[in-house]
């Protein structure tokens, strides 16, 4: 903690005061927990006042079967000028939560948020184009949730040969 940059300290302090964020720590990396309503303004403050002009990564994490919070959306911000990294986390409750988008601040958040919608089912209010990106257009379900099955195929040994053979998909293709 003593080695942390002065600029980073002041940025964290400002966000903590304005938006009542809590500080978490992992090793020498600091992450700020912010409420979902404040995330857009917090990012705006960080970008305009503290020059965190680059969004490295935006992803989510599912903590099922814990209900409160069920999801955490994690933002990694980077400042080119000061060479500093900062992590923001937003805890979300409920099965189909939503939070404001940061696409107008960082244009490259567009596809990150689409991927989170596709994989987790977290809605982003104000996103211009929220639709599935990695899965097929009509897929049902959100694959990266913990209650979604992996969908693996059982290896076919001799003792379960017949059962697996029944379930294996046999395509109907026409031979010439």
């Amino acid at each position, binding site marked *: 903690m003593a080695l942390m940059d002065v600029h980073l300290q002041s940025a964290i302090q400002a966000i903590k005061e304005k938006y009542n964020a809590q500080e978490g720590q*992992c*090793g020498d*990396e600091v*992450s700020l927990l912010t409420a979902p309503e404040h995330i857009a303004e917090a990012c705006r403050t960080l970008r305009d006042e503290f020059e965190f*002009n*680059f*969004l*490295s*990564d935006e*992803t989510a*994490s*599912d903590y099922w079967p814990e209900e409160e919070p069920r999801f955490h959306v*994690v933002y*990694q911000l980077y400042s*080119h000028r000061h*060479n500093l*990294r900062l*992590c923001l986390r937003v805890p979300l409750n409920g099965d189909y939560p939503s939070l404001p988008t940061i696409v107008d601040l*960082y*244009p*490259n958040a*567009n*596809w990150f948020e689409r*991927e989170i919608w596709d994989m987790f089912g977290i809605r982003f209010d104000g996103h*211009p*184009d929220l*639709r*599935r*990106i*990695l*899965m*097929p*257009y*009509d897929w049902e379900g959100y*694959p*990266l949730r913990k209650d*979604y099955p*992996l969908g693996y195929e059982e290896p076919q040994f001799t003792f379960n040969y017949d059962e697996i053979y029944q379930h294996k*998909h046999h*395509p109907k293709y026409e031979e010439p």
Partner: protein
Amino acid sequence: MLQQTEVSLDELRHLVSDRAIEGETVLLNMGPQHPSTHGVLRLLLELDGETVINCIPDIGFLHTGVEKNMEAKTYEKAEVMTDRLDYLNTIGNNLVYCLAIEKLTGLDVPLRAQAIRVILTELQRIASHLVWLGTHALDLAAMSAFLYCFREREMILDIMEMCSGQRMMTTFFRPGGLWRDVPAEFELSVRRFLRIFPARIDQYETLLTKNPIFMDRTKKIGVISGEDAIRWGLTGPSLRGSGPNYDVRKAQPYSGYDQYEFDVPTGTHGDVYDRYRVRMEEMRQSVRIVQQALDKLPYGPVRSSNRKYVPPPRAELGTSMEALIHHFKLWTEGFSVPKGAVYIPVESPRGELGVYLESNGGPKPHRVHYRAPTFVHLQALPLLSKGHLVADLVAIIGSIDIVLGDADR
């Protein structure tokens, strides 16, 4: 089972301009299977004659579900899947995963392992740039460059095979260091490669750099300014071609990169030609780094001796009880990483490759997310290609160096 799902124009209405709806412009599908899209990328182009008005990339045709699959495997087993993400930078994917585990667990990495990691990562960077150069030149109809590049790449793949047994998906880096020490012929082979390679880069430059056809097809194409590039999240050579000097190896050095002297090339105009020049110069700088690392290569162990995470050598198993217990625990249950979350960026040949690793204290990762540079760069493709011809689009896609395994994970 294979019903064809048609996406009607209604769903894409907000993306295409009004002229497409009226029928003035053509909506063309540059489909998943196309020789110039470097993988399975689908582009929906809105064309006015030959000029691209808008280009909507559609990815997901190579979605492998690696992130979910890694949550079901232990840490060591999951590393095998990381190779197959960005399949041209396999060693780099391993490196970033091992760095994340080492940060969470506090494992030490011996100096010899760090130096060999640097050597292999830079060789992989050269190999990836060779594939980029070969396919990019092939798209712009310079076929001989393709054959030359793959000839050099075979030498690097031989070195990889000598160390790990596999040409591409090596899984050579493990948490704590390397899988095993490099053989005796390693240094000789690498030195032989370094002796001939700078002359080969000159050969490629002779073919392409001052070639009037190449310059016509690449200058002033796909221009993006420095500020726009940062706003759209570009990193790596695609960013440095426009000016900003951001290289993760210099900004947040890892694995001993601060000991080596190397320059980071930047361009000025931000067009396809500058990105090409940046990557060619990067290959020369990689040769420089490998030279220094090989000269300073220290002796010593290649893997940490922390038996909670690293299996003991087999010779010890006959004599020591603790070694046997550690071996048993590591093989049946796998090691457990303390609770926490970490984000580690490294410099891949495409840009900033990052891994976000979250652990809940168990033997399997809770969440592994790869920040893939290709995923981010493809978002900027509509901006880069507005107003250009379809043939220029091919050059632009080549210049941002996409690998769909990276984007779709």
